[in-house]
């Protein structure tokens, strides 16, 4: 059974390999004149060492594998992440008001509330945040297809 420590250990090892090679490519330099790759190289090696220790220890781990599986986000979590990713993509085109209203409709909608509450809550949250950030804190929010 693949446990979460084995998965994470393998991932850290891959990351360590990438960082170490990046360090070499950047130029490690010498001890009396360390180059830009000095720290990435040594921290990559340190990560590799720790990852190997984790992997080795996970092989001896006596905790039942069932209890140690990697937990992935459930449906709601995946929907939230997808909504946020889509929001990043659409924000420059649609602008703050439209994109954020859409995001809030999804986020409130996932809470299984009445449609009227979802719509009113979303509009109110977007309106208040718009006033706070654009007019009080003077953050230039993206306009997108709207003129304001």
């Amino acid at each position, binding site marked *: 059974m693949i446990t*979460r*420590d084995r*998965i*994470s250990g393998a991932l*850290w090892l891959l990351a360590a390999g990438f*960082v170490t090679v*990046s360090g070499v490519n*950047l130029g490690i330099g*010498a*001890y*009396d*004149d*360390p180059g*830009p*790759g*000095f*720290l*990435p190289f040594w*921290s*990559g090696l*340190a*990560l590799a060492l*720790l*990852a190997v*220790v*984790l992997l080795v*220890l996970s092989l001896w781990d006596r905790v039942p594998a069932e209890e140690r599986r*990697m*937990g*992935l*986000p*459930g449906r*709601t*979590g995946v929907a*939230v*992440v997808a909504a*946020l*990713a889509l*929001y*990043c993509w659409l*924000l*420059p085109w649609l602008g703050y008001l439209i994109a*954020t209203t859409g*995001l*809030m409709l999804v*986020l*409130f909608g*996932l*809470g*299984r509330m009445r449609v009227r509450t979802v719509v009113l*809550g979303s509009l109110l*949250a*977007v309106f208040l*945040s718009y006033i706070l*950030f654009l007019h009080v*804190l*003077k*953050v*230039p*929010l993206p306009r997108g297809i709207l003129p304001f």
Partner: protein
Amino acid sequence: MDILNGLLYGFSIATQPGHLALVFAGCLLGTLVGVLPGLGPVAAISILLPLTFHLPPAGAIIMLAGIYYGVMYGGSTTSILVNVPGETASVVTCLDGYQMARQGRAGAALGIAAFGSFIAGTVGIVGLQLIAGPLSSVALKFGPPEYFAIILMGFTFVTYLAPGSSLKAGIMAVLGLILSGVGLDPITSEQRMTFGVLNLFEGIGVAPLAMGLFGVAEVLNRLEQASFGRVLQVKIRSLFPDRKDWLSARWAILRGTLIGFFLGILPGGGPVLSTFISYGVEKRIAKEPERFGRGAIEGVAAPEAANNAAASTSFIPLFTLGIPPNVVLAVLFGAFLVHGIQPGPLLIRDHPDIFWGVVGSMYIGNVMLLVLNLPLIPLWVQVLRIPDRILYPLILLLCVVGAYSINNSVFDIGVMVVFGVVGFLLKRGSYEAAPLILAFVLGPMLEVNLRRSLLISGGDFSIFFTRPIALGAMIVCLFLLALSFLRAKKGN
């Protein structure tokens, strides 16, 4: 500037109407976040950081500091009334606080927590103003080897003291160090691990990283869990502890204050560790230790005093050495940098308005918290009843707009979302994000001081073992590593 003049100057800054409003806002927001289970001071400061971007630096830091000690006050309310800690430093308060509430003594528990916090917080601030000046003068004599060794000691402490596996904490610290290296090289300005992405030339921003790891990840994590405990339906009769309560709690408050005072300064220590140690001390020296866990008032007074004293004194290493001792201060360190201020030995000399302004505001904030919070407890109880399905979308909205407002860049929202998912997965894998963020913030300092030390010594590593302060720090590092190894061996 001597201490008395400095303090008067600090009060003249902190009592400006704008700054008073910011102290009030910080304390109120901090208490609110402290009351809400799940969101701790790191998430609070990360999420609310963008609100301070348009403030002058002194006002911004005053508000963020207010949020920090506001959280410390607010966390106890949830622990006592719901048996769910508002934040990690209030975990221990659940043990006896909730039992006191069940026995109809919620008022006394909330009261002693508030008064204990006030006393300890005030002692901590006195310590901050007394120690910071002399320590800054000493720190001015530090060179790159001393800084490298002290930062390394901070890393080791954080790794050793992190809850759970030290090995995983070590992995997180190294990962933070690697992430801090993304961007332009601090000495040669060459691109490192940027993949040619323009937005990465200046590195990964500390605010989107912290907002992702602590804000978004926390929301994702809570979405996967069942709703937290129910608020106790208790009638709070009086928030003033009676004479017997005071007699029982007075020494516990004093001991908690002392423990918090010293652990706050220690790298990796801070409020959380101090609560566990002070609770353990109280239980150990009690005549009837079996009372603990069943509603002993000392079990509330000592940890609450400890976490507030530690919250105040943890500013000492940040203000004097420029080294944040814990993750909350690491995010605050990021806030200093966002405002173009470098914390360190020159802070008191170059920015006395910030140092003394924060000290003055802490005194005022402590009084504000005591005066405002006790009458507002019924309001906080109502806040606890806000359903998650309303609260979490609003937190995410604040995160999204906050991340955007840092550089007016959608890229920062993307960074926050990515690290939100990473933070969620790390939590599921029992990895603590705190060492990562601390190493991320201190990484550039560590690298620059390491490289400068090697340049000075001509590549000779003995430079870290021949200068007294550096040697002392290195010995502590080796000692902690040996202890970690022994602990792991014993555990197996």
